[in-house]
Protein backbone atom coordinates (compact mmCIF):
# COMPACT_ATOMS: atom_id res chain seq x y z
CA UNK A 1 0.00 0.00 0.00
CA UNK A 2 1.38 3.39 -0.88
CA UNK A 3 1.36 6.12 1.69
CA UNK A 4 -1.61 8.40 0.97
CA UNK A 5 0.02 11.16 2.99
CA UNK A 6 3.28 11.20 1.10
CA UNK A 7 2.45 14.05 -1.21
CA UNK A 8 -0.69 15.66 0.12
CA UNK A 9 0.04 16.50 3.78
CA UNK A 10 3.09 17.72 5.65
CA UNK A 11 5.44 14.96 6.80
CA UNK A 12 4.58 13.38 10.14
CA UNK A 13 6.70 13.84 13.21
CA UNK A 14 7.91 10.25 12.91
CA UNK A 15 8.83 10.79 9.28
CA UNK A 16 10.88 13.87 10.12
CA UNK A 17 12.64 12.21 13.04
CA UNK A 18 13.44 9.14 10.96
CA UNK A 19 14.84 11.21 8.14
CA UNK A 20 16.94 13.29 10.52
CA UNK A 21 18.33 10.23 12.24
CA UNK A 22 19.09 8.40 9.02
CA UNK A 23 20.84 11.45 7.57
CA UNK A 24 22.96 11.89 10.67
CA UNK A 25 23.92 8.22 10.94
CA UNK A 26 24.85 7.98 7.28
CA UNK A 27 26.85 11.20 7.43
CA UNK A 28 28.78 9.92 10.45
CA UNK A 29 29.45 6.63 8.68
CA UNK A 30 27.57 4.57 11.23
CA UNK A 31 25.02 3.04 8.90
CA UNK A 32 25.24 2.24 5.24
CA UNK A 33 22.42 3.27 2.97
CA UNK A 34 22.72 0.15 0.82
CA UNK A 35 22.62 -2.02 3.93
CA UNK A 36 19.37 -0.35 4.96
CA UNK A 37 17.92 -1.05 1.53
CA UNK A 38 19.01 -4.67 1.78
CA UNK A 39 17.32 -5.03 5.17
CA UNK A 40 14.08 -3.59 3.84
CA UNK A 41 14.23 -5.69 0.69
CA UNK A 42 14.72 -8.85 2.72
CA UNK A 43 11.48 -8.47 4.64
CA UNK A 44 9.49 -6.73 1.94
CA UNK A 45 10.29 -9.22 -0.82
CA UNK A 46 12.13 -12.32 0.38
CA UNK A 47 11.10 -13.45 3.84
CA UNK A 48 7.37 -13.82 4.31
CA UNK A 49 4.48 -16.19 4.98
CA UNK A 50 5.20 -18.30 1.88
CA UNK A 51 8.06 -19.76 3.93
CA UNK A 52 5.65 -20.89 6.62
CA UNK A 53 3.21 -22.22 4.04
CA UNK A 54 6.01 -24.35 2.59
CA UNK A 55 6.69 -25.79 6.04
CA UNK A 56 3.01 -26.51 6.65
CA UNK A 57 2.46 -28.16 3.28
CA UNK A 58 5.52 -30.35 3.76
CA UNK A 59 4.32 -31.30 7.24
CA UNK A 60 0.99 -32.37 5.75
CA UNK A 61 2.65 -34.53 3.09
CA UNK A 62 5.64 -35.97 4.89
CA UNK A 63 5.10 -37.63 8.25
CA UNK A 64 8.83 -37.93 8.86
CA UNK A 65 9.15 -34.21 8.39
CA UNK A 66 6.23 -33.63 10.77
CA UNK A 67 7.97 -35.79 13.37
CA UNK A 68 11.11 -33.74 12.91
CA UNK A 69 9.09 -30.53 13.37
CA UNK A 70 7.63 -31.93 16.54
CA UNK A 71 10.99 -32.86 18.02
CA UNK A 72 13.14 -30.03 16.62
CA UNK A 73 11.16 -27.40 14.77
CA UNK A 74 14.15 -25.06 14.51
CA UNK A 75 16.20 -27.72 12.74
CA UNK A 76 13.38 -28.97 10.53
CA UNK A 77 12.45 -25.45 9.44
CA UNK A 78 16.10 -24.51 9.01
CA UNK A 79 16.56 -27.49 6.68
CA UNK A 80 14.35 -25.61 4.19
CA UNK A 81 16.62 -22.56 4.42
CA UNK A 82 14.44 -20.59 6.85
CA UNK A 83 16.81 -19.64 9.63
CA UNK A 84 17.92 -16.71 11.69
CA UNK A 85 16.54 -13.60 13.27
CA UNK A 86 13.30 -14.05 15.22
CA UNK A 87 13.23 -17.72 14.38
CA UNK A 88 16.17 -18.98 16.40
CA UNK A 89 13.97 -21.14 18.65
CA UNK A 90 10.96 -22.48 16.81
CA UNK A 91 8.11 -24.61 18.04
CA UNK A 92 5.10 -25.87 16.13
CA UNK A 93 1.63 -26.15 17.61
CA UNK A 94 -0.84 -28.34 15.74
CA UNK A 95 -4.54 -27.79 15.28
CA UNK A 96 -6.74 -30.88 15.51
CA UNK A 97 -10.48 -31.45 15.54
CA UNK A 98 -10.48 -30.72 19.26
CA UNK A 99 -7.64 -28.20 19.57
CA UNK A 100 -7.20 -24.74 18.15
CA UNK A 101 -4.00 -22.75 18.66
CA UNK A 102 -3.62 -18.99 18.68
CA UNK A 103 -0.35 -17.06 18.96
CA UNK A 104 0.16 -13.62 20.50
CA UNK A 105 2.85 -11.59 22.20
CA UNK A 106 1.16 -9.54 24.90
CA UNK A 107 4.35 -7.71 25.93
CA UNK A 108 5.65 -6.55 22.55
CA UNK A 109 4.95 -8.23 19.23
CA UNK A 110 7.26 -11.24 19.00
CA UNK A 111 6.58 -13.13 15.81
CA UNK A 112 8.34 -15.88 13.84
CA UNK A 113 9.97 -13.72 11.17
CA UNK A 114 11.77 -16.58 9.45
CA UNK A 115 8.53 -18.29 8.51
CA UNK A 116 5.99 -15.46 8.45
CA UNK A 117 8.00 -12.31 7.75
CA UNK A 118 7.16 -9.15 9.64
CA UNK A 119 3.89 -9.12 11.59
CA UNK A 120 0.75 -7.44 10.27
CA UNK A 121 -0.48 -4.25 11.93
CA UNK A 122 -3.31 -6.00 13.77
CA UNK A 123 -0.91 -8.48 15.39
CA UNK A 124 1.01 -5.53 16.84
CA UNK A 125 -2.14 -3.66 17.85
CA UNK A 126 -3.08 -3.10 21.47
CA UNK A 127 -6.57 -4.67 21.23
CA UNK A 128 -5.23 -7.92 19.76
CA UNK A 129 -2.46 -8.17 22.31
CA UNK A 130 -4.91 -7.42 25.13
CA UNK A 131 -7.76 -9.73 24.19
CA UNK A 132 -6.03 -12.75 22.64
CA UNK A 133 -5.29 -14.07 26.13
CA UNK A 134 -8.50 -12.99 27.88
CA UNK A 135 -11.09 -13.49 25.13
CA UNK A 136 -9.67 -15.60 22.30
CA UNK A 137 -13.12 -16.67 21.11
CA UNK A 138 -14.13 -13.04 20.78
CA UNK A 139 -10.93 -12.32 18.86
CA UNK A 140 -11.50 -15.26 16.54
CA UNK A 141 -15.08 -14.13 15.93
CA UNK A 142 -13.78 -10.71 14.94
CA UNK A 143 -11.73 -12.46 12.26
CA UNK A 144 -14.80 -14.41 11.18
CA UNK A 145 -13.70 -17.70 12.74
CA UNK A 146 -16.32 -19.31 14.97
CA UNK A 147 -14.69 -22.05 17.01
CA UNK A 148 -17.00 -24.64 18.53
CA UNK A 149 -17.43 -24.43 22.30
CA UNK A 150 -16.10 -27.97 22.67
CA UNK A 151 -12.88 -27.12 20.86
CA UNK A 152 -10.05 -26.42 23.29
CA UNK A 153 -8.35 -23.14 22.58
CA UNK A 154 -4.68 -22.89 23.41
CA UNK A 155 -3.23 -19.40 23.40
CA UNK A 156 0.54 -19.10 23.16
CA UNK A 157 1.92 -15.87 24.63
CA UNK A 158 5.42 -15.44 23.15
CA UNK A 159 7.00 -14.06 26.30
CA UNK A 160 10.43 -15.61 25.60
CA UNK A 161 12.48 -16.15 22.42
CA UNK A 162 10.45 -19.24 21.51
CA UNK A 163 8.53 -18.56 18.31
CA UNK A 164 5.35 -20.44 17.55
CA UNK A 165 4.06 -21.59 14.18
CA UNK A 166 0.52 -22.93 14.03
CA UNK A 167 0.06 -25.94 11.76
CA UNK A 168 -3.53 -25.63 10.57
CA UNK A 169 -5.53 -28.70 9.65
CA UNK A 170 -5.22 -29.94 6.09
CA UNK A 171 -8.50 -29.23 4.34
CA UNK A 172 -10.56 -32.24 3.31
CA UNK A 173 -10.66 -32.95 -0.40
CA UNK A 174 -7.01 -32.15 -1.01
CA UNK A 175 -5.75 -35.72 -1.33
CA UNK A 176 -4.61 -35.13 -4.89
CA UNK A 177 -2.99 -31.74 -4.33
CA UNK A 178 0.72 -31.37 -4.83
CA UNK A 179 2.80 -29.91 -2.04
CA UNK A 180 3.00 -26.63 -3.95
CA UNK A 181 -0.75 -26.56 -4.46
CA UNK A 182 -1.24 -27.27 -0.78
CA UNK A 183 1.13 -24.48 0.19
CA UNK A 184 -1.01 -22.09 -1.84
CA UNK A 185 -3.97 -22.87 0.42
CA UNK A 186 -2.13 -21.90 3.59
CA UNK A 187 -2.82 -18.35 4.73
CA UNK A 188 -0.65 -16.30 7.02
CA UNK A 189 -3.58 -15.85 9.39
CA UNK A 190 -4.04 -19.60 9.74
CA UNK A 191 -0.41 -19.93 10.84
CA UNK A 192 -1.01 -17.32 13.57
CA UNK A 193 -4.29 -18.96 14.49
CA UNK A 194 -6.86 -16.25 13.79
CA UNK A 195 -8.18 -18.39 10.94
CA UNK A 196 -9.15 -22.03 11.44
CA UNK A 197 -10.69 -23.60 8.36
CA UNK A 198 -8.62 -23.16 5.22
CA UNK A 199 -10.53 -22.70 1.99
CA UNK A 200 -9.90 -25.01 -0.91
CA UNK A 201 -9.86 -23.03 -4.12
CA UNK A 202 -8.74 -23.71 -7.66
CA UNK A 203 -9.35 -26.40 -10.23
CA UNK A 204 -8.91 -29.44 -8.05
CA UNK A 205 -12.06 -28.97 -5.98
Amino acid sequence: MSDPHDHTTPPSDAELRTKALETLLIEKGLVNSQALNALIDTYENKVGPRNGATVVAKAWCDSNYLDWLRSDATGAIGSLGFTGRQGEHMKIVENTDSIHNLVVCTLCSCYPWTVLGLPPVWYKSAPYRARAVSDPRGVLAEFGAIVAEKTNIRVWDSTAEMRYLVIPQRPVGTENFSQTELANLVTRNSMIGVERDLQVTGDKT
Partner: protein
Amino acid sequence: MNGGHDLGGVDGLGPINPEPEALESVFHHEWEKRAFALTLACGFWGQWNLDESRHARERQHPADYLKNTYYENWLQGLETLLAEKRLLEDENIQKLSSKCISADSVGDILSRGGPVNMPTDTTPAFHPGDDVKVMNNHITGHTRVPRYCAGRIGFIEAVQGFHVFPDANALGQRTGQYLYSVRISAQELWGRDSHSVYVDLWQPHLTSVRKS
Protein backbone atom coordinates in the same frame (compact mmCIF):
# COMPACT_ATOMS: atom_id res chain seq x y z
CA MET B 1 7.32 -3.37 35.10
CA ASN B 2 3.57 -2.86 34.92
CA GLY B 3 3.96 -0.56 31.93
CA GLY B 4 1.80 0.47 29.04
CA HIS B 5 3.25 -2.41 27.01
CA ASP B 6 1.86 -5.05 29.37
CA LEU B 7 -1.42 -5.45 27.57
CA GLY B 8 -2.75 -8.90 28.38
CA GLY B 9 -6.31 -8.58 29.68
CA VAL B 10 -6.60 -4.81 29.33
CA ASP B 11 -10.13 -3.68 28.40
CA GLY B 12 -11.40 -0.67 26.52
CA LEU B 13 -8.94 -0.72 23.62
CA GLY B 14 -11.63 -1.02 20.96
CA PRO B 15 -11.93 -3.41 18.02
CA ILE B 16 -8.93 -4.95 16.25
CA ASN B 17 -10.04 -3.91 12.77
CA PRO B 18 -7.64 -6.16 10.86
CA GLU B 19 -6.80 -5.33 7.28
CA PRO B 20 -7.61 -8.26 5.00
CA GLU B 21 -4.53 -10.43 4.65
CA ALA B 22 -4.52 -10.23 0.86
CA LEU B 23 -4.54 -6.43 0.89
CA GLU B 24 -2.04 -5.64 3.63
CA SER B 25 1.44 -4.54 2.62
CA VAL B 26 4.51 -5.20 4.76
CA PHE B 27 5.03 -1.49 5.46
CA HIS B 28 2.44 1.29 5.37
CA HIS B 29 4.66 4.34 5.07
CA GLU B 30 8.07 4.94 3.56
CA TRP B 31 9.44 6.15 6.89
CA GLU B 32 8.44 2.87 8.53
CA LYS B 33 10.85 1.03 6.24
CA ARG B 34 13.66 3.36 7.20
CA ALA B 35 12.87 3.26 10.93
CA PHE B 36 12.77 -0.53 10.78
CA ALA B 37 16.06 -0.81 8.93
CA LEU B 38 17.78 1.80 11.09
CA THR B 39 16.78 -0.08 14.23
CA LEU B 40 18.25 -3.31 12.91
CA ALA B 41 21.38 -1.67 11.52
CA CYS B 42 22.11 0.15 14.78
CA GLY B 43 21.37 -3.02 16.72
CA PHE B 44 24.13 -4.75 14.77
CA TRP B 45 26.68 -2.46 16.44
CA GLY B 46 26.23 -4.70 19.48
CA GLN B 47 25.89 -1.80 21.88
CA TRP B 48 22.65 -3.09 23.40
CA ASN B 49 20.83 -6.39 23.59
CA LEU B 50 17.25 -7.35 22.75
CA ASP B 51 15.97 -6.87 26.30
CA GLU B 52 17.52 -3.45 26.62
CA SER B 53 15.83 -2.41 23.40
CA ARG B 54 12.49 -3.78 24.59
CA HIS B 55 12.89 -1.98 27.88
CA ALA B 56 13.71 1.28 26.09
CA ARG B 57 10.31 1.06 24.38
CA GLU B 58 8.30 -0.05 27.38
CA ARG B 59 9.67 2.66 29.70
CA GLN B 60 7.69 5.31 27.83
CA HIS B 61 4.66 6.88 29.45
CA PRO B 62 1.85 4.34 28.95
CA ALA B 63 -0.28 6.87 27.07
CA ASP B 64 2.57 7.51 24.61
CA TYR B 65 3.19 3.81 24.17
CA LEU B 66 -0.50 3.23 23.42
CA LYS B 67 -0.92 6.20 21.11
CA ASN B 68 2.17 5.40 19.09
CA THR B 69 2.14 3.01 16.19
CA TYR B 70 4.47 0.04 16.31
CA TYR B 71 7.28 1.69 14.36
CA GLU B 72 6.85 4.94 16.27
CA ASN B 73 7.64 2.93 19.37
CA TRP B 74 10.66 1.43 17.62
CA LEU B 75 11.86 4.87 16.61
CA GLN B 76 11.38 6.20 20.12
CA GLY B 77 13.28 3.22 21.55
CA LEU B 78 16.15 3.72 19.13
CA GLU B 79 16.40 7.42 19.94
CA THR B 80 16.37 6.62 23.66
CA LEU B 81 19.18 4.08 23.36
CA LEU B 82 21.34 6.33 21.19
CA ALA B 83 20.89 9.20 23.65
CA GLU B 84 21.30 7.26 26.89
CA LYS B 85 24.41 5.48 25.66
CA ARG B 86 25.79 8.74 24.17
CA LEU B 87 26.62 6.86 20.99
CA LEU B 88 26.41 9.92 18.78
CA GLU B 89 29.07 11.79 20.72
CA ASP B 90 32.42 12.18 19.07
CA GLU B 91 34.41 9.75 21.19
CA ASN B 92 31.93 6.95 20.48
CA ILE B 93 31.50 7.60 16.79
CA GLN B 94 35.10 6.58 16.16
CA LYS B 95 34.56 3.31 17.97
CA LEU B 96 31.31 2.52 16.18
CA SER B 97 32.25 3.33 12.63
CA SER B 98 34.17 0.07 12.34
CA LYS B 99 30.96 -1.77 13.24
CA CYS B 100 28.91 -0.31 10.40
CA ILE B 101 27.65 -3.27 8.35
CA SER B 102 27.66 -3.38 4.57
CA ALA B 103 24.86 -4.49 2.29
CA ASP B 104 26.82 -7.64 1.48
CA SER B 105 26.77 -8.87 5.05
CA VAL B 106 23.05 -8.32 5.66
CA GLY B 107 22.00 -11.77 4.43
CA ASP B 108 24.51 -13.59 6.61
CA ILE B 109 23.74 -11.60 9.72
CA LEU B 110 19.99 -12.08 9.41
CA SER B 111 20.16 -15.77 8.67
CA ARG B 112 22.52 -16.32 11.60
CA GLY B 113 20.21 -14.51 14.01
CA GLY B 114 20.99 -14.41 17.69
CA PRO B 115 20.23 -17.63 19.54
CA VAL B 116 19.75 -17.18 23.28
CA ASN B 117 20.24 -20.73 24.47
CA MET B 118 23.28 -21.24 26.67
CA PRO B 119 25.28 -24.23 27.87
CA THR B 120 24.67 -25.47 31.38
CA ASP B 121 25.67 -28.34 33.61
CA THR B 122 22.61 -27.95 35.83
CA THR B 123 19.32 -29.77 35.57
CA PRO B 124 15.88 -28.12 35.57
CA ALA B 125 14.10 -27.73 38.90
CA PHE B 126 10.69 -28.37 37.37
CA HIS B 127 9.39 -31.09 35.08
CA PRO B 128 6.34 -31.47 32.86
CA GLY B 129 3.23 -31.83 34.98
CA ASP B 130 4.63 -30.01 38.02
CA ASP B 131 2.25 -27.47 39.53
CA VAL B 132 3.88 -24.06 39.81
CA LYS B 133 2.90 -20.62 41.00
CA VAL B 134 4.11 -17.58 39.09
CA MET B 135 5.88 -15.26 41.50
CA ASN B 136 3.80 -12.25 42.38
CA ASN B 137 6.81 -10.02 42.19
CA HIS B 138 6.03 -6.75 40.48
CA ILE B 139 9.56 -5.65 39.73
CA THR B 140 9.80 -2.16 38.35
CA GLY B 141 12.53 -3.01 35.83
CA HIS B 142 12.30 -5.15 32.71
CA THR B 143 10.72 -8.55 33.04
CA ARG B 144 8.94 -10.93 30.71
CA VAL B 145 6.36 -11.94 33.31
CA PRO B 146 3.09 -10.40 32.12
CA ARG B 147 1.09 -8.79 34.90
CA TYR B 148 -1.89 -11.02 34.19
CA CYS B 149 0.12 -14.11 35.21
CA ALA B 150 1.57 -12.77 38.45
CA GLY B 151 0.56 -14.91 41.40
CA ARG B 152 -1.40 -17.38 39.27
CA ILE B 153 -1.08 -21.14 39.42
CA GLY B 154 -0.45 -23.38 36.43
CA PHE B 155 1.61 -26.38 35.49
CA ILE B 156 4.73 -27.08 33.51
CA GLU B 157 3.87 -28.04 29.95
CA ALA B 158 7.47 -28.36 28.73
CA VAL B 159 11.06 -27.52 29.51
CA GLN B 160 12.17 -25.21 26.71
CA GLY B 161 15.90 -25.18 27.33
CA PHE B 162 18.40 -23.02 29.16
CA HIS B 163 17.98 -19.46 27.90
CA VAL B 164 19.29 -15.98 28.57
CA PHE B 165 17.34 -14.49 31.50
CA PRO B 166 15.74 -11.20 30.34
CA ASP B 167 15.32 -9.61 33.78
CA ALA B 168 19.12 -9.68 34.13
CA ASN B 169 19.94 -9.26 30.45
CA ALA B 170 18.15 -5.89 30.38
CA LEU B 171 20.70 -4.81 33.00
CA GLY B 172 23.55 -6.01 30.80
CA GLN B 173 24.09 -9.33 32.59
CA ARG B 174 23.91 -12.26 30.17
CA THR B 175 23.14 -15.17 32.46
CA GLY B 176 21.09 -18.27 31.74
CA GLN B 177 18.08 -19.83 33.43
CA TYR B 178 15.85 -22.75 32.57
CA LEU B 179 12.87 -21.70 30.49
CA TYR B 180 9.50 -23.42 30.80
CA SER B 181 6.21 -23.39 28.98
CA VAL B 182 3.66 -22.88 31.75
CA ARG B 183 0.03 -23.68 31.11
CA ILE B 184 -2.52 -21.61 33.04
CA SER B 185 -6.28 -21.97 32.75
CA ALA B 186 -8.51 -19.05 31.78
CA GLN B 187 -10.51 -19.76 34.92
CA GLU B 188 -7.38 -19.16 37.01
CA LEU B 189 -6.44 -16.04 35.04
CA TRP B 190 -9.79 -14.36 34.48
CA GLY B 191 -12.36 -16.21 36.55
CA ARG B 192 -14.18 -17.22 33.38
CA ASP B 193 -13.98 -19.06 30.05
CA SER B 194 -12.39 -22.38 29.18
CA HIS B 195 -9.23 -21.75 27.16
CA SER B 196 -5.66 -22.27 28.30
CA VAL B 197 -2.83 -19.79 28.07
CA TYR B 198 0.74 -21.01 27.63
CA VAL B 199 3.35 -18.58 28.85
CA ASP B 200 7.13 -18.94 28.64
CA LEU B 201 8.64 -18.22 32.03
CA TRP B 202 12.07 -18.68 33.56
CA GLN B 203 12.91 -20.65 36.67
CA PRO B 204 13.30 -17.60 38.98
CA HIS B 205 9.71 -16.61 38.12
CA LEU B 206 8.27 -19.85 39.44
CA THR B 207 7.77 -21.50 42.80
CA SER B 208 6.69 -25.03 43.51
CA VAL B 209 3.10 -25.74 44.50
CA ARG B 210 2.22 -28.87 46.41
CA LYS B 211 -0.25 -31.01 44.53
CA SER B 212 -3.63 -30.77 46.21
